[in-house]
């Protein structure tokens, strides 16, 4: 059963490549796995067909399936199942369901400095001027958050959603999708200065690796005041229960 051996060897290497994904949550990218497997399968095939006996042994079951009169039943079954499987795959969408691969960095490195409102902001040291009020005067802070909420629902919620989950009315039409603020992956990982830069400069202000040409996010510096941006940032963190990264 050299055919079985061939299939098992290939499967073994496939599982080996998948292991980092299963056990460690660090999957080897599928684009690379398919490349690796392409060459692994070919190498295994080459090794198993060096001699004529080997090659015959490997292909004997396939040959028998097609030619052997005694295998008529199996043959008919296979020739029905294979097209049906293909039909199902096509119907199911097959590989097309996966999001296309891209080289875009979601959160690219920010520039050290950015300009807006006639001044230069140093993103390494920039802080939210309202953040300190949170401890000094919780009541005043609450009203600031509320004002930020108004800014959000006048400007942002169309794309980022009323639950801040990135699923606003327009979201389905956009690619890349608007990011959610909920969850631990986005603003929870970022400093407020980074979020400020993103709102200020929007998609056009992204460096090239961030895909500046495909992001639909507008640059808000012409629409919002500096204070409004800081307030809406307060709201984003407050509503989602995230705390800004401070280091």
């Amino acid at each position: 059963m050299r055919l079985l051996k061939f299939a098992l060897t290939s499967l073994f290497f496939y599982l080996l490549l998948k292991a980092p994904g299963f056990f460690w949550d660090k999957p080897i990218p599928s684009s690379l796995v398919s490349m690796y497997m392409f060459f692994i399968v070919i190498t295994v095939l080459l090794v198993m067909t060096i001699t004529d006996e080997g090659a015959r042994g490997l292909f004997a079951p396939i040959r028998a399936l097609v030619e052997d009169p005694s295998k008529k039943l199996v043959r008919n079954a296979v020739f029905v199942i294979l097209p049906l499987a293909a039909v199902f795959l096509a119907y199911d969408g097959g590989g097309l369901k996966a999001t296309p691969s891209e080289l875009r960095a979601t959160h690219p490195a920010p520039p050290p400095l950015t300009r807006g409102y006639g001044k230069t902001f140093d993103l390494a040291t920039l802080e939210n001027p309202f953040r300190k009020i949170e401890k000094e005067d919780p009541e005043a802070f609450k009203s600031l958050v509320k004002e930020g909420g108004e800014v959000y629902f006048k400007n942002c919620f169309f794309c980022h959603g009323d639950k801040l989950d990135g699923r606003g009315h327009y979201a389905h039409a956009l690619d890349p999708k608007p990011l959610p603020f909920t969850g631990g992956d986005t603003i929870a990982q970022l400093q407020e200065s980074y979020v400020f830069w993103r709102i200020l400069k929007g998609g056009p202000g992204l460096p090239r690796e961030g895909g500046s040409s495909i992001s639909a996010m507008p640059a808000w510096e012409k629409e919002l005041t500096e204070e409004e941006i800081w307030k809406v940032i307060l709201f984003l963190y407050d509503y989602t229960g995230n705390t800004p990264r401070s280091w």
Partner: protein
Amino acid sequence: MKPRFKSILSLTALAALQLLFVLPYFFSGALAAEATGAFGPAPVLAAGDYPKVTGVNPRMFVWMAAQMHLWFAAFVLAVPIFVLLLEVVGVIRKEKRYDKVAYEFLRVSLTAYSITAITGGLLLVGLIVFYPDLMKYLSSIFGSTMLLYALFFFVESAALYLYYYGWKPMSSGGLKWAHIGVGLLLNASGTTLMFIANAWVTFMMTPAGVDMAGVFDGNIWHAVRNHLWGPMNLHRFIANIAYGGSIVAAYAAYRFLGASGDKEKAHYDWMGYTANLVAIGALLPLPFAGYWLTAEIYAYSQQMGITLMGGLFAWLFIIQAVLIGALFLAANYYLWCGFKRGVNGERYLKYVRYLAFVIAATFLVWFTPHTLILTPEEASSLGGQYHPLLGPLGLMPAKNIAVNIMLLFTFLSFLLYRRSHRTPTVKWARAGNAMEAALFTAAIANIIFLGVYYGYFTNSVYKVASSVPQVATTLFVIAACLVIEYLMHRNSETAELKWGRVPDRSQYALFLIAVSFTWLMGLMGFVRSAIRQHWHVYSVMRDNSPDAFTPSIAYAAKTVSVGTIIFMAIVAFIFWLSHMGREGEADE
């Protein structure tokens, strides 16, 4: 007069006519410069200065013509080297079969020679029609070398015909040596032709002998000896031999598949094996010539170097890695299939899987890119563009380790193949085997240590430097093992190799090697030319035509594929022609 002879004459006349027709044009620039006694600056062109022909894309026309010319020229230059070597070996060993194969190939190269001249004429016409100002500027500098080129072209043609038609009349005694002398002249003039043409091409990349505005200082040697001329000459010379070998091997493979008897089969099997050995042997030093070429590009302009190795073209080198990996895999497969030619081959078959495992593993490391292509889900679970396991494999040190080990194991396949038909009988055979094993182990340990230690644990200055001792280790092991093998197998029991005892499948490996070589030459030729970006003559004369943009890799790959198919079709036609011609000869 024989009809075949007549057709060859007419083709030569055609080629010569083309030259006569276009040469005066070349010299007009040079003569004008001499008449005024001064060289002007490079012309500054506008989009309107480029003639347009409806329905023809000028760059594509010139690109295709140049690529065809280059492929045929590589073939035409390489085959006489081969033929001469075979003839000399035949004389020394006093074996007729070498002479027979040599003659068979010369016949093929005769037709290819005409086509090289035709494609060269096509390229020239394309350049003059579509880029007249560039050609005027270049000919004002290189006019005298163009005259030299024409001269050597006629010398080469004369030598080729004398060599071919003198084969039978000059086949014995002192005349044979005179004939070999003619072959030498043929090769010398052919190689000189290539060196002259290389000067023009490399001048466009790394101009020398001109100032910033492109004013020529009048000394032709300055312009010829620019930065890339030396490395380009070496690189193309070696690559031509490898390429010629691969095409000859593919031809033999095709004849093997169609062979009617065991004797014919054995003959073409032997021919394919020998040609392939030459091809792979010439491939091994090619990376070093390539390193030299790249180093000179960096030395000339760091900007040009980064354009080549980083950014846009970085992925092109991943493609190159894939192709060369496939090439090595195919070459090894061919060797493994050949184990059965020897009586003892069976006993080594069981090691093939381990050899294959190592070669495949190093291959996978070799083409692992540093920046991974991720789906958004993968990107979020990795938290970035890099993988903790694969990241280090994407860097240069890992690739250097991989390629050296790949070379060593390919060599191991070759050693096992050689042992498939002989058994050492010297007393110290066991010690010799142990010594070779120890050499391999030590070399691999050394290569890995050098790569890991200098590559990942020291600063970047040593990263590149560590590749030199790694390569030295590999070369040393190969040389040392060959010496041990030679001593060990003196007076050994040598069984005759059973040529022809290989499966048909193995011959497809030879086709893959020939196709991969052709395609790779096209692609690397593209990048060599593309790093000039929007310049005709880098930094001196700007390309302001609508085609000045740098095409993407995908566009280039498609172009190269179409070119490869056309080229392969013409080659198949030439072989068919020569086959027909010989059948006619048999009838006479």
